Structure formats: structure tokens, C-alpha cells
């Protein structure tokens, strides 16, 4: 039981970080960026390349990972998504293909072998009698720091307010002097940076493989739909629902069914309350 609580809380923190960037883009631009989890994967590889293969310090690895994923996100937006904001199907399909392209490129660069990223913080701690790796704890603390920073940004800064304003009433935002293109771009950049942080921690929590994006993508789907697309609070809550359910399933039933409860909840929520628990 303690195991489920602790593991669930830690996993949920990471999920929230990945799903957060995903939901922000939908909230502001009303499009789903399926390549988001692809950025997470590429960021993980960038960090591994910088720190382990190039021998740079951890901070530099972080900076490179964040720069790469932010660059990818901004590139995706400026490259073509900007032109198709009113056609979600094209964005949907094209970003999905883009994620696949990222997978192929990473396969060409790093091969299809599972790679282990050295932990950022070493060692294990016993929490309530359960072994927990310090690395995971650090990852979750960092996730929460990032989530807190994003929440602060969205609530207390002009740009953050502009994002929320654009999500709620586009026309109202424009006549207040907000340039939607600029706000969209900023959102994509922030979402990319979050993917960068998430990538480093996700990679060091799990392992690196070019198809790493599929599972986080499906889980972020479930999370943002349960929480309500575009709602940050909903994402936080849903990440915990999914995280705990998943841990409980893995520990009590079968490891192979880990993604099923989240998806089942998602389907029930969608059919019973399509806007999600916290959606508007």
C-alpha cells in the first residue's frame, strides 16, 4: 500500500510535467501537438550525448537538452503549424509523422539499442520502508519546481495572462493589443522547454530508445483528456489519478496492463463528460 502511494506520487509528478506542455499548446492554439513526446525523447538523447558522450557537466547537458527541444518546438510551430491553426486534422497528422521522423533520426544517430542514462543523483533512500531512488525523488522535485514556475508564469505575468486570455477569448485578446502569433510562439517555446526538462528526467528514470515517445504520448493523452484539454489544474489532478492507478495496476495485477486503467478512465470520462473533469 505504501509502495503504491509513494511510487504513484513520484510517477504522477513526471507525468504531470510531460502532460503540462502538451495541454498548454492545446489550451492556447486549439491544436494537439503529437510531436510533443518526440521532443521529450530527443531531449533525453541530447542530454545523454552531452554529458556521457561529450563529458560535459550536468548543467550543460540540461541546457543543451532544453535548447534542442525548445528549438524543435519553435521549429515545428514556425515551420508549418502556424499556417494550419484552423485545420486541426492536418496538425494532428503532420505532428504525428514528425514524431516518427524524430524517431528515425534518433535511430540513425544512436541505434535502436536501449541506453541507460546515468542517474543525476545517485543512491537509494528508504521511505516508509520502501526503496526509492534518489534520482526519482530529484526528478519529481524538479518537476514540481517546473510546474510551479509555469503556474506562476501563467498566473502572474503579462505573457501568462495573455496566454490564458487568448485561450478564453481570441477576439478579446486581440483588441487588448495581444499578438496571437507571438503568444502562440511563446507557448510552444515554453512547452518545448518543459519537454526538455521532462526528457532528461524521464530518460534517467527509464532508459533511452528511439520509440520512447509512444508511451508518454498515450499517457499524456489520457491525462489531458481526463483533466480537460487545456486545463493546467485538471492536468495536475489527472496526472495523479493516472499515476496512482498505473502503479496500483503494476503492483497488484499485471505489469503488462499498466496503461489500461488510465485509458479506460479516459474513455469513460470522454463519453460521460467530454470536456473532462476540469474542462470548461
Amino acid at each position: 500500500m505504501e509502495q503504491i502511494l509513494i511510487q504513484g506520487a513520484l510517477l504522477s509528478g513526471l507525468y504531470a510535467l510531460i502532460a503540462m506542455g502538451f495541454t498548454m499548446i492545446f489550451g492556447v492554439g486549439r491544436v494537439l501537438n503529437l510531436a510533443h513526446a518526440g521532443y521529450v525523447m530527443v531531449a533525453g538523447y541530447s542530454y545523454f550525448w552531452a554529458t556521457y558522450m561529450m563529458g560535459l557537466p550536468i548543467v550543460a547537458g540540461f541546457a543543451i537538452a532544453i535548447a534542442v527541444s525548445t528549438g524543435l518546438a519553435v521549429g515545428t510551430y514556425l515551420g508549418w503549424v502556424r499556417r494550419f491553426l484552423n485545420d486541426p486534422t492536418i496538425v494532428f497528422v503532420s505532428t504525428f509523422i514528425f514524431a516518427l521522423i524524430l524517431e528515425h533520426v534518433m535511430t540513425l544517430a544512436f541505434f535502436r539499442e536501449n541506453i541507460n542514462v546515468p542517474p543525476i543523483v545517485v543512491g537509494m533512500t528508504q521511505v516508509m520502508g520502501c526503496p526509492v531512488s534518489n534520482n526519482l525523488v530529484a526528478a519529481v522535485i524538479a518537476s514540481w519546481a517546473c510546474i510551479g514556475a509555469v503556474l506562476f508564469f501563467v498566473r502572474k505575468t503579462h505573457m501568462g495572462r495573455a496566454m490564458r486570455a487568448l485561450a478564453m477569448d481570441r477576439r478579446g485578446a486581440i483588441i487588448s493589443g495581444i499578438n496571437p502569433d507571438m503568444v502562440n510562439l511563446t507557448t510552444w517555446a515554453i512547452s518545448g522547454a518543459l519537454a526538455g526538462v521532462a526528457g532528461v528526467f524521464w530518460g534517467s528514470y527509464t532508459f533511452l530508445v528511439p520509440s520512447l515517445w509512444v508511451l508518454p504520448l498515450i499517457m499524456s493523452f489520457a491525462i489531458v483528456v481526463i483533466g480537460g484539454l487545456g486545463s493546467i489544474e485538471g492536468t495536475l489532478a489527472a496526472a495523479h489519478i493516472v499515476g496512482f492507478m498505473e502503479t496500483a495496476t503494476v503492483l497488484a495485477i499485471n505489469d503488462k496492463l499498466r496503461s489500461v486503467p488510465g485509458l479506460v478512465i479516459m474513455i469513460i470520462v470522454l463519453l460521460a463528460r467530454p470536456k473532462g473533469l476540469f474542462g470548461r
Partner: protein
Amino acid sequence: MKKKGLQKLGVLISVVLALAIVLPLAGGCTAGAPAPEEPWKCGYIGALATDVGRSSQRTTQIAIDEINAAGGLLGRQIEYVEADSTEEPLEGVKAYEYLAEHHKVDFIVSGCIDDVSLGWMPRLLEYKIPTLDTWTSAIRCIEIVHDDYEAGGKAYFMPHMNDYDQGAEYVAFANDLLAAEMGWDTMVLYYEDTAYGCGVAEWVRDEIGPGAGIETLGEVCYDIGTFDFTPVYSKIVAYDPDFIFHICSVNCVPPSAAYVEMEIPIPIFGVNVAACSAEFWDDMGGMAGGFNATMPPPTIGLEWDPVSQALIDKYKARWTDRPIFPHFNGFNAYQGIYHMVEAAERAGGFEPLDKWVKEMEKTDQILWRYGGHERRDDLSPTGQDIKWQYYMYYGPDHDYTHSCVLDQTGEHGRPGGMVMQWKLEKQDPLEATVGIIHPERWRNTEFVFVPWIPEEKRIQK
């Protein structure tokens, strides 16, 4: 204006696309049936982005170059073509069709993983092309060969031991080292859900207990997509066994890394395919020290016979990128191609299939520690030379048709399941710093526990 430009672009694209489709068709039409003086064609199928695929791909090339340099097969050169199966079963089928029908290859060497091989098995039965499968050891493949022998299954050969024979090797290892030397009597069977993992686990479950007096406290099976091993190890630790018997082939690095990161206080043994790769140290992010694994014989850490050493030298001279050292399937592919070609020489080619299969089934090859290909029975066993590697295929009347014969008695010298261990510190950045700890005859390094295993867990008789 812009619209018109777009239209022209449309016309251009259409024309190019039409040409792209029609031209190869026309090209295909003009290519006639191969004339007798044309070279033999050897097709390679495997995932070219994986270490496993590349090992056998490269040694295949080396073997074919050597044969060509020595005059070829029956006076004809061998041409090498390849098709990528990308670890996707559907791509595997397409790649197999491509080799069989586009290139009309005479024989195929495969480095495919289990489910890809199982995917193209029906095509093998249809085309009946001699095929050497160097990676998969799935007993299902062997069952198909055995059951559909006349329908075409006989064209399939596996130049290494199948799942069940490997399982038998591990039982021997458990008997010798774990039960007899260490005095352990409880374990947890921990395996991945692949054809390989389940196949070996089945054997180990049925044989180790009764055979070595080791009690299986529980079984933990995990999916190859698993990324978080904390809960998995929590389950294992809850059983509190003397040791963990781990079987994995596809997803090996993550469970190993989790074991090190979580500092699981229970010794781990078993089959870890990634640990026999020279890149293991790097893939683990430098945490491979002290890790051990049971492996089929040709593995890093072993002292090499001259034939294998020559292969390694050629390999290293030709390729410097990953994998820097061939996996065991690389050695098997290299030897297997020689078996196929020698059988074809004796049978006068790969047609008719029956004749070639008969010759292939007669393969009986021993690699000597200090010798070469040739049989040097006079040197053994009293002389200084010892039998090192042994290849012979089961016949159609045996259940394990066309997989390699297991020589458990040691009569032919094959080691009964070798256990290699990574040293705690990596000494040479390019070379694998591993040694063999079991069996006794091949041991070249001392077994050490990883530092976090508590004293009480290190019971030894």
C-alpha cells in the same frame, strides 16, 4: 498567378511520380532469368539499426568476401544483398519477399529477432530457400521445421542451440555453481515476455528445481516495453530469495540498470544478452561493473581459437563503429555460412533442396583451441590442444530438427553454458574487460559480488 504556379507544380509532381512508378516496372521487365555464369546471391535479412543485426550482417560480409577471394562456390562468385527488417514483423515479411523475388537469392542469412522470424516462416515454407537464422532460438521456429519438414521447413537451419537446449545449459550451471558451490536453495525466476524468455523460463522452471534442489519461490514476468522496474524489483525483494535467475534478450539494459541503481541486495544470475555486447559498459552509463551473465559459448571475455580470432581481427579492421565487437550470432553466422557453402559444394549447388539439406545435416565441425578447421584428433585429449567449439545439426527425426546439437557431456568440448562477468572497473576503453567465471575449465577471472550485496547473502558452502 500563384494558383497557376501551383497547378504547374502539380503537373510536375504527377509526371515525376508516374515516372518513378513506371520506370522500375519497365526495368524489372527487361531483367531476364539469371544466366548460369552469374554469381550466387546471398541475401541478408535483419534489423540493420541494432547491434544484433549488424553483428551478423558484418560477419556475413566477411565470410562471403573470404569465400569469393578463395575462388567462390563451385567456381562462381557470391553476391551479397541485404534487406532491412527494422524489427517490425511486417517489414520482415516484405524484406523476405524482396530477397526471394526481387533478387531471387540462392540462400538467406537472417539476424532477425523472434517475432520477425516467426513472421516470415510461412514465406520460407513457400519459397523453400535455404535459410540460416543466426539470432532467434525460438522453439516455435524449430517446431515448424520439425512438423512441416517436407513442406519446406527443412530449408531452415539454426547454427546455435534452441531455447530448450540453452535452458538445459543453465540447469547445469545452476547445479554446478549455484547449488553445489554457493549452497543456495531458493530463487525467483525473473524473465521477459518474449518467445525466448518464456521458452527458457519454462525449461528452467521444470528442470532447475528437481535437478538442482533449488526451490522457485515465485515468478516475475515483465513486458519488453516496461520502463519502470521499481515495482518489479519490489515484488522480487518481497519473496526474499537466495538469488534471482534473470532471463532476457530484448530489453536487457533497463532491468540491469535498475538493479544497479536500486542496489537490490540479492545476487542476480541468468541470461542477459546485452551483457555479452562490448557496448554494455557504455549502454549502462558506466554501471556495468560486477554484472554477470550466462551466455552461449562464443562470447566476449573468452580466449579465442585461431579461426574466431582471425574473424575478430578482420572485423575490427573493417568497422570501428557500434558494435565494435561481434555478438555471438556474428560468429555463428560466419561459421554457418561456411557450413552452407561447404554443403552446397558437396551437393553441387543449392538445387535440388533435398540434396543440399542432406549434405548440410552432415555438418560436423570442431574448432580447436590452438588448431584450425581441420580435424586434429591426434592432439586431443592427451595433447595440449582442446576442443573449443562444436557445430552439428539435429536431424529430422529429433524433436529439435536443424538446431545445433547440445553437447552436455563435454565429449566434444563445448563449454556447458559459460558465465561471464564484467570487472568492477573498466580497464581498457576499447576492449571489453570481462572474464569467464564458469565453468572451471574456462575460468580466467575470479567471481566477485557487487559491493552492496550484504554479507549474509553471500553464503558459500
